[in-house]
């Protein structure tokens, strides 16, 4: 029976290993270039968040594990590319940016905890992160309470504005309403609303119904499926029976794969009844299967094919860093833009202090891959061009219609008379 004693050895070893690893982890972030002389001569710059000697620490908080990892890792990569570019161009306040990466693990409470850690322990200057609305809602009180600064790169349902968050993705009036206007212009006035059951589709559909009522459009049905649901047989039958002119799709994630497969299986073509999606970008098209979704519509602010010189540079730089077969999409571009905007604002303010950055950021413009974007001071959203696209046989999306100029962000839909909150 003596061997039992040795069997316990791996357990003890592993525990020791975990302890050592965690101890190393803490040191690794603080020991690099922590020269006190640099801050002392800087005349009060020691009080600026994130500044450690010749380095400025910034946080990156996306899901690197769990269901959202597939989308969020790509955004993280685009943000890291932008940070490389900022560093190559001389950094911020003449200091190089150093990224502290944390995993939100597709779990909203983890996002809140890691955000708190980035602000209070790592003392980063700003954080780039989040994807789902749930993760943003979980982080919002943390950034407000601890006076941090978050750059959130994904289109969302609107009805939110926080002094501690910059929204570089579209709000509803820059994506969903242009999508509806496009359908209306095409004479598609009978809509079927289909979404995953969480806050973004629910809120978006509430807004769509208000728009439809004011614009002579009819909503034939409104259906929700649980996140991750793959059973669409009944729903596809319902869509076929209801005969809407178009389907407005706010499904998220894996559900899209099953939905488009079963829709194609039922013989419904994009020519008879187009599906306009607001959560399917180039990254998702490959997962759904190009043959299942070719010809369908999307609404975004940016596509890999968007024709600007800045975009050609962005796509080339991304492929050079991460591989020639990579695709880029709207949230990645918004994350990339967020990094550049923050760097410009901090350089303009000559400080990483949140209030100073906020003051400098209002009205700032940047030649982004999607075209020129401008920060709207009061709402902290961007002026963005809306683009309706059609999915091509090569898996890329081609623009079929766009707004004549960047649309002013209106997260609370105050400028729309049909919206009563």
């Amino acid at each position, binding site marked *: 029976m003596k061997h039992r004693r040795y069997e316990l050895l791996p357990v003890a070893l*592993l525990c020791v290993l975990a302890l050592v690893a965690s101890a190393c982890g803490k040191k690794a972030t603080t020991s690099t270039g922590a020269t006190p002389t640099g801050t002392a001569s800087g005349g009060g710059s020691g009080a600026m968040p994130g500044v450690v000697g010749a380095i400025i620490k910034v946080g990156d908080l996306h899901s690197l594990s769990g269901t959202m990892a597939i989308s969020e890792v790509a955004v993280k990569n685009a943000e890291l590319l932008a940070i490389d570019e900022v560093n190559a161009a001389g950094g911020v306040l003449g200091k190089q940016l150093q990224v502290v990466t944390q995993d939100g693990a597709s779990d909203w409470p983890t996002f809140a905890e890691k955000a708190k850690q980035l602000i209070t322990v790592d003392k980063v200057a700003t954080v780039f992160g989040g994807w789902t609305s749930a993760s943003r809602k979980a982080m919002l009180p943390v950034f407000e309470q601890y006076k941090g600064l978050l750059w959130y790169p994904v289109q969302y349902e609107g009805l939110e504005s926080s002094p501690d968050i910059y929204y570089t993705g579209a709000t509803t009036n820059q994506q969903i309403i242009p999508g509806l206007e496009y359908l209306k212009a095409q004479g598609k006035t009978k809509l079927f609303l289909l979404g995953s059951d969480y*806050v973004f589709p629910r809120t978006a559909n509430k807004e769509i119904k208000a728009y439809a009522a004011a614009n002579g459009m009819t909503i034939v049905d409104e259906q929700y499926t649980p996140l991750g649901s793959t059973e669409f047989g009944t729903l596809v039958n319902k869509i076929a029976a209801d005969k809407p002119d178009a389907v407005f799709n706010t499904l998220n994630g894996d559900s899209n794969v099953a939905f488009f497969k079963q829709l194609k299986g039922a013989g419904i073509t994009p020519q008879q009844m187009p599906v306009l999606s607001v959560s399917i970008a180039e990254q998702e098209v490959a997962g759904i299967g190009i043959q299942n979704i070719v010809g369908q519509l999307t609404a975004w602010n940016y596509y890999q094919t968007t024709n600007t010189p800045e975009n050609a540079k962005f796509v080339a730089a991304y492929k050079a860093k991460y591989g020639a077969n990579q695709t880029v999409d709207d949230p990645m571009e918004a994350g990339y833009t967020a990094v550049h905007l923050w760097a410009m604002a901090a350089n303009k303010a000559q400080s990483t202090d949140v209030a100073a950055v906020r003051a400098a950021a209002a009205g700032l413009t940047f030649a982004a891959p999607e075209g020129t974007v401008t920060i709207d001071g009061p709402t902290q959203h961007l002026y963005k061009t809306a683009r309706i696209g059609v999915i091509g046989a090569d898996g890329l999306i081609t623009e079929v219609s766009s707004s004549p100029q960047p649309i002013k962000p209106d997260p609370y839909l105050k400028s729309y008379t049909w919206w009563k909150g």
Partner: protein
Amino acid sequence: MKMPGASGGARNPWYGRIGFALVALGFLVLAPATLSDFGLNLFTKYLCYAIIAVGIGLAWGQGGMLSLGQGVFFGLGGYAMGMYLKLQAAGPGKVPDFMSWSGVEKLPLLWKPFQYAWIALPAVVVVPMAVAAGLGAMVFRRRVRGAYFAILTQALAAAFVILLIGEQGYTGGTNGLTNFSQAFGLDLADPTNQRMFYFITAGVLGAMFLLARQLMASRYGRLLVAVRDGEERVRFLGYNPTVIKVIAFSISAGMAGLAGALFVPVVGIISPALLGIVPSIEMVILVALGGRSSLVGPVIGALAVNYAKTSLSNRFPSGWLYLEGLLFVVVIGFAPMGLAGLVGYGRSALDRLRGSPGASPADEAKRLEDEVVPA
């Protein structure tokens, strides 16, 4: 099967008392003095899990009832507290923010009682206990146990999460309840208040631990262990095993509910992601890893696993889940008695070195062997 009870055999009772006092001193003086504000906040979260673990230790370790749905009770407590805080944040006569996003303009009937602290605060314990008692009374009377009981509780966790997500207008859906800036008029971002929550949580953990220990030392505790090891025999002796099991199950649910209520102001969010099947199984893993045969084991497990989780995810943001999985496999595979078992093993090894007749290696091996057999 001889699993050591909570009293730890015939050792001098003062050992335990002095040990408890030392640990309490460490928790109440050492931890607040040495940890940063953020570190203490994390530690408070670990203590919440430790409270759940004490409950699972009682129901599973001592009572043999493996509940894979402890997240439901944790959630009931957490949501009861969250609803109260959310209504406080909304102000009188207003609905919480998420309701208006979902088109719910009037406060639902279910929410109305939670405007009052005197209903919400007792509810965090009473509701989970009542649900557990109701469920327990139904299934234990029908002699549902073992794997069937585990599956049933797991199904309960799945159903609870589907309900919470489906009724977004009434529950906050996937987002859960978040954005509480204050609780009971206290600013939650203020480190002093967080320190107070730490002391409350540590105090509750101590009280729950003593309650469980007291229960196990009592006549009831011996009956509970007897039911675990031979339910039919206890029945033939004239006791009603259903009542005995319902009490332990319901107390463990109450502890989970209490932990949920403390969790909300500390972490600032309660969401379905915290109480589904996976988190419920994680709660059981805490206990399995710490060692379910003692009452100290679950506490050690909860603290160790959560600490490992935090430190591994900080060090290896993209690969930490693999390491955590490895940790589980190695501990369960090589030390089925859990971390507390290692301590016990070390103690008996020490006794042997001293030539004490207390526990022979053969006894110890037999005990480990027994432990592998699931209750």
